[in-house]
């Protein structure tokens, strides 16, 4: 008998439905599997045989042929164990009266019949719903991830016997229901890191606010202990809360990367990624024979923090150029090109010199040459793509002990939200999302100046000897500052403030 079961697989970020066809006919008792599979898919044969034996079901002495179609697509992973096992049972007529129309099965089998979690559940369930399927059976480990999608019945199963019971109608199991809003609300109310914990550092705080409001990339330069990491860590907290849509986008990446589990079944808060500077190129952008999403994709719509920026390997930093421009990363392999989203905010931190204490000449003995050489290790093209630069200073003990009331993250976030709202209105239908995205050719269009601001800009340009690129950066940042104040036109004071966050180290390296 022939049977056909629907399962799913991931091709990069794209989910595809896979037809698991099983045929049982008379002949020599062999178990054949075809359909462009990798090694771990073929291993399913052994797992299925033993698992079925252990739940008291024998594979009958028939000639079994399994085909995974479309056959042109390379199949990877262990997610086909469950559909193949059920297919075998149905084809061999070991179970009957099963309801398989519009049902998707996915999961890995253990030798005792247990069902284990797999990657990519969220995007696969989403795709199944779009294809009009009614029901999905996923490993219990991944059920919350699947239940994130509404409008489709999602069952979490932990053992193959449960699957058989559900399919034959013997079980009274109900689809898993998840109150997404409630989970979101819970997470939002528990922001643990707040800007009010940082004393002083007005400049860096303000730079962080502007960066969060306009999604600008930010460079922090300062001596050890100035609080670069503290500032960076608090940036996700002042960005607008994740919308359901964004959460889905981010969760899909995490699902594909296998980073979701029963504890954290989808992403409710903007992630903060801080890889160590020894990170490799493939860990950064994604890699492997079948590429997995890299750190930059995990930082999609969130913050990628690179501490000790000059210490990163040059090539690891250079590969960020294309993703920063395109907001996606494409990884080509002989079989396919994989595209992962990578719309991240880069926050880089660096010491001002090799010893870290410049310009405090009582501690720093680095020569000008040492300093230029150290900062010169930072890639120029990457600096060019960063809009804001902030030099921080060491905090002294009085400031640490001072009890002065600092602004908390919430009030900063409210200003950011207002600025984001203005930007959303402005950029509706343009493909841009934030001021940080504006490309040079559109700067004139969006960064309108108030009367008189033109002269200020002109004077600043001459005085600070700006380059064309830093001129553009200056305008983009001024736009965000104006948005934070709710001004439609950029005025002179916005430009002047923006000039204080200009990329001085680029000027120094070029001059």
């Amino acid at each position: 008998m022939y049977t056909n079961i629907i399962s799913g697989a991931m091709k990069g970020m794209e989910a595809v439905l896979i037809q698991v066809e099983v045929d049982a006919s008379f002949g020599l008792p062999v178990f054949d599997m075809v359909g462009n599979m990798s090694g771990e898919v073929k291993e399913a044969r052994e797992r299925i045989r033993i698992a079925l034996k252990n739940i008291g079901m024998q594979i009958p002495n028939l000639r079994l042929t399994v085909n995974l179609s479309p056959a042109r697509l390379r199949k990877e992973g262990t997610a086909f164990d469950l559909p193949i096992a059920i297919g075998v049972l149905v084809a061999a007529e070991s179970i009957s009266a099963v309801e398989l129309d519009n049902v998707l099965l996915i999961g890995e089998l253990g030798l005792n019949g247990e069902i284990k979690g797999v990657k990519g559940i969220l995007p696969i369930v989403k795709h199944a719903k779009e294809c009009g399927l009614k029901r999905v059976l996923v490993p219990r480990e991944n059920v919350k991830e699947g239940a994130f999608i509404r409008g489709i019945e999602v069952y979490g199963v932990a053992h193959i016997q449960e699957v058989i019971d559900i399919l034959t109608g013997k079980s009274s199991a109900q689809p898993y229901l998840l109150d997404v809003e409630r989970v979101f609300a819970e997470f939002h109310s528990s922001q643990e890191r707040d800007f009010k914990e940082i004393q002083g550092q007005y400049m860096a705080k303000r730079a962080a606010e502007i960066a969060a409001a306009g999604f600008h990339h930010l460079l922090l330069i300062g001596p050890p202990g100035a609080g670069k990491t503290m500032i960076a860590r608090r940036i996700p907290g002042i960005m607008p809360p994740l919308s359901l849509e964004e959460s889905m986008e981010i969760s899909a990446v995490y699902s594909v990367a296998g980073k979701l589990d029963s504890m954290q079944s989808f992403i409710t808060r903007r992630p903060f990624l801080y890889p160590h500077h020894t990170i490799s190129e493939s860990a950064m952008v994604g890699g492997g024979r079948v590429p997995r999403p890299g750190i930059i994709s995990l930082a999609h719509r969130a913050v990628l923090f690179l501490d000790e920026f000059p210490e990163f390997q040059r090539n690891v930093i250079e590969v960020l150029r294309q993703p920063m421009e395109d907001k996606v990363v494409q990884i080509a392999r002989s079989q396919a090109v994989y595209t992962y989203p990578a719309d991240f905010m880069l926050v880089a931190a660096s010491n001002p010199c090799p010893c870290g204490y410049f310009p405090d000449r009582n501690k720093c003995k680095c020569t000008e040459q040492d300093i230029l050489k150290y900062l010169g290790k930072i890639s120029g093209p990457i600096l060019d793509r960063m809009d804001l630069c902030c030099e921080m200073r060491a905090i002294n003990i009085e400031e640490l002990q001072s009890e002065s009331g600092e602004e908390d993250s919430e009030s900063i976030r409210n200003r950011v939200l207002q600025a984001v709202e203005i930007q959303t209105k402005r950029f509706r239908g343009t493909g841009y999302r934030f001021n940080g995205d504006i490309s040079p050719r559109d700067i004139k269009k969006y960064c309108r100046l108030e009367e008189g601001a033109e002269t200020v800009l002109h004077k600043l340009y001459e005085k600070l000897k700006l380059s064309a690129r830093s001129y553009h950066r200056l305008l983009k940042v001024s736009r965000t500052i104006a948005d934070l104040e709710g001004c439609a036109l950029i005025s002179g004071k916005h430009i002047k403030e923006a000039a204080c966050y200009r990329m001085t180290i680029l000027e120094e390296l070029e001059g």
Partner: protein
Amino acid sequence: MDRTELAAGAWFHKINSIGFRTMFQLMERFGSMQEAYEATEKALLEVLSGRQFSAVKAAKYAMHPKDYLEQVEEKGIRYICFYDDIYPEKLKNIPDPPFGVFVKGSLPRGEVPAVAMIGSRACSDYGRNVAEVFAGELAAKGVQIISGMARGIDSISQAACVKAGGQTYAVLGSGVDVCYPEELYRLYTDISKSGGIISSYAPGMEPLARNFPPRNRIISGLSDVVLVIESRKKSGTLITVDMALEQGKEVAVIPGRITDELSKGCHELIKQGATVISDVEQLLELLQDICKLQNFPMKSVQSENVHLENSQSENIQHGYKSESSGIHLNNREISPELKSILGVLDYEYAEAEKVYEKWLQQGNKGSFQELLTGLMDLELMDLCKSNKNRFSIR
């Protein structure tokens, strides 16, 4: 001076194992370097050690003195021997003078006062400021500036001197055709055009660490006053000062704050009796005394540069005025807010945050953004200057 004699001098000079003392001994024994070159093995061995003799033999085999001198001159380098008339008088009078020097460009003129400006390689903003102002003003007065073209104070002073159109001379620890530090190539070319590059090492010599203490001797030797701008407690600058004292030169010191590491060396010198310098005029007076000049020559340098320097000094004085007698800014009107910001700025760079805190402490009210905007306003009005996000009075 006789060309064959000069060539023989340069030729002996090039041989590494033969030092200046040996060369003077050869001179004494044979009467001229040419004679020494032609001397017999037996005669030479009276002065030279076996190792030196074999080096001389090898050199004879490799190149003829005339060819060597031509080769050097082709690179635009002159060799000036101790017995030459143009050998600097000041250098003649120091203990252990070099037998000869290689020069690219010109030599400092003996009748014109010369100041050696030396200091730390890793200097502070303060040191940089002082070096620039002093070098600029001295150059405008026609004073020659001698230094070692090292990173930091040395090169800052020399660059400021070149900019002001003055004459500056760099004494290197390498051959005069080797630019070290490499990144100062532009300055190197400028100096060789307007002033001169001097070295007691033969062309092609690498900048070895052991070459530097002897070259410091020449820096102090060529100058009338040695001005120390910033120096740590243990520093190469202090070696130059020791040499200067040995040579009987006047040592002048720019003081700093007692807490600054970079001024500890200077304060040590002051304790030992060095002259404290607090403005350019004082240094000029000191020079006048030492050089026994009636009237400071003060030849006019290119008028444009003088003007530039004047306007700079005006600004400086102006700054002092603004602190003592309230704010009086070239009759320029500025708003009370800007005035209050200008009031908390200092001559030393301070981070915007520090400025903000000081500003708040003085009872002003406003957001940090307002302060930043104000600072930029002041910078646009040329009343303050910034370096990264640090600000100071111009």
